[in-house]
């Protein structure tokens, strides 16, 4: 992935990226101001971030779909670029955009939390490392890979009822489910739920990646125009 590709991905999904960054930061700041005690912040903050990291990273999927329909991918293939490299490049763009949203939210959230004199507890550290960060990347990759495969296998159509229109839901839905479930359980079950969801979702992403190498044969990269 080159800087040009990353820039194009960010540009393609700029509105999603802006929404992801801004809403995530607003919620982080709101949580910092309203959380009643450190326990509430430690429980809620790690669950919120993956929602917006996934939403903000739609640029990778949009780059793939746009380049495919405009014949850019077949141009690259004709000059010897492997189709799989093009696919992986879009996933790298997805991960880079996820890092932007995630990094901003973590910096502001943790900065505010620690700046207020709160200690970085083991619970918070475990939640961030065991759920927030891996789940943010996993849900973003899930939405991108799912959207890419779906768009490549289906007949092109316009509007919101398309893989690109519906992919954000693919990415946001799992962290929403975890958020609802984890907030209603006790502390011991909280870690089981979040860690279990992370592992299950990472496994799903790996499965999708394996499936994509079979489903995304060379002609799936060609424009149908």
């Amino acid at each position, binding site marked *: 992935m080159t800087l040009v590709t990353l820039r194009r991905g960010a540009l393609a999904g700029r509105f999603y990226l802006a929404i992801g960054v801004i809403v995530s930061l607003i919620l982080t700041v709101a949580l910092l101001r309203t959380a009643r005690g450190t326990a509430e912040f430690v429980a809620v903050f790690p669950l919120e971030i993956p929602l917006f990291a996934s939403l903000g990273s739609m640029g990778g999927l949009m780059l793939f779909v746009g380049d495919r329909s405009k014949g850019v991918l077949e141009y690259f293939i004709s000059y010897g670029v492997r189709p799989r490299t093009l696919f992986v490049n879009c996933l790298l763009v997805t991960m880079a955009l996820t890092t932007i949203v995630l990094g901003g939210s973590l910096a502001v959230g943790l900065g505010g939390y620690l700046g207020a004199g709160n200690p970085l507890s083991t619970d918070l550290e475990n939640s961030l490392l065991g759920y927030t960060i891996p789940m943010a990347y996993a849900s973003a990759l899930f939405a991108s890979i799912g959207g890419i495969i779906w768009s490549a296998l289906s007949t092109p159509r316009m509007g919101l009822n398309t893989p690109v229109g519906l992919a954000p839901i693919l990415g946001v839905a799992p962290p929403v489910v975890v958020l609802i479930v984890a907030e209603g359980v006790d502390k011991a079950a909280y870690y089981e739920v979040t860690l279990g969801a992370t592992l299950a979702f990472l496994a799903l992403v790996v499965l999708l990646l394996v499936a994509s190498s079979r489903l995304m044969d060379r*002609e799936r990269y060609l424009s149908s125009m």
Partner: protein
Amino acid sequence: MLTAPPAVTHSSSPAAVACQGLSSGYRGKRVLEGITFEIREPAIYVVLGPNGAGKTTLFRTMAGVLRPQSGSVSIAGQSVDEQATKDRLHFLSHIDGLPDGLRVEETLRLYGSVEGADEADVERVLRLLEIEPLRERFVSELSAGQKKRVAIARIFLHEREVYLLDEPTANLDPKVASEIRDLILRLSRDRVVLYSSHNLFEAREIGTYVLALKSGKLSLFSRIADLRSTRYVVGVRAAIGEQHLPVANKKGDYYLFELPGPDDVAGLIQELEGKGVRLREVKEMGNPLEDLFAA
């Protein structure tokens, strides 16, 4: 095997382009069936055929973008799948292949980085295609014709032996289309150019050979000059005596006459002059390439 008629068929060197029993298509659906031909001579080879005949599929398969279902494509004796052949050919798709989010100059630099061209090459093609004034514009802001010019600029970044140009002058105004044709004609002096077009007059003007596709099969590979129309039609414009010409056969300013062949034009002129018609112009109206669509 269909070989371009005047090709140096006894040469021991491999053909510039060779398709052998090529069948190709999408998702198991066969679009091309048993295409076999060889090209050895630098020239423009016009690929003609009605919509759905398989022109784009042929170009994609020859460019290595689409894998053949059976048969093979080789460029200078090497399979098109080999990386080395990628440096021998340029493929211009029927869609522009221009990435979003980049300015014209950045787009050409991106192409240049893929094709091994440098900054000087980018500047040269900006001048060559007269797109310097567009260099700071985003591709998404350009008109269809301007986009096409930027897309075409790509094939002049770096010289190759074989050019696969799928409808390169579609969406261009007549003046720019003519300029592009001139550039391509110059290229074809020492390069093989396969050129698809729906414009039969353009095809006749620019092409030396024609490859006609019909229902996914190669129905003709011939020198265009050797083609004869099944109907030989001439158009006549008169300065005086127009009333003696057949009104029922008028097309635009021309009165049409169907003749057995070019040898009969002199007889027609003599006959009309005998009736008191003073001729201003006599010209051939039919295009033998039309028959390839009608057949």
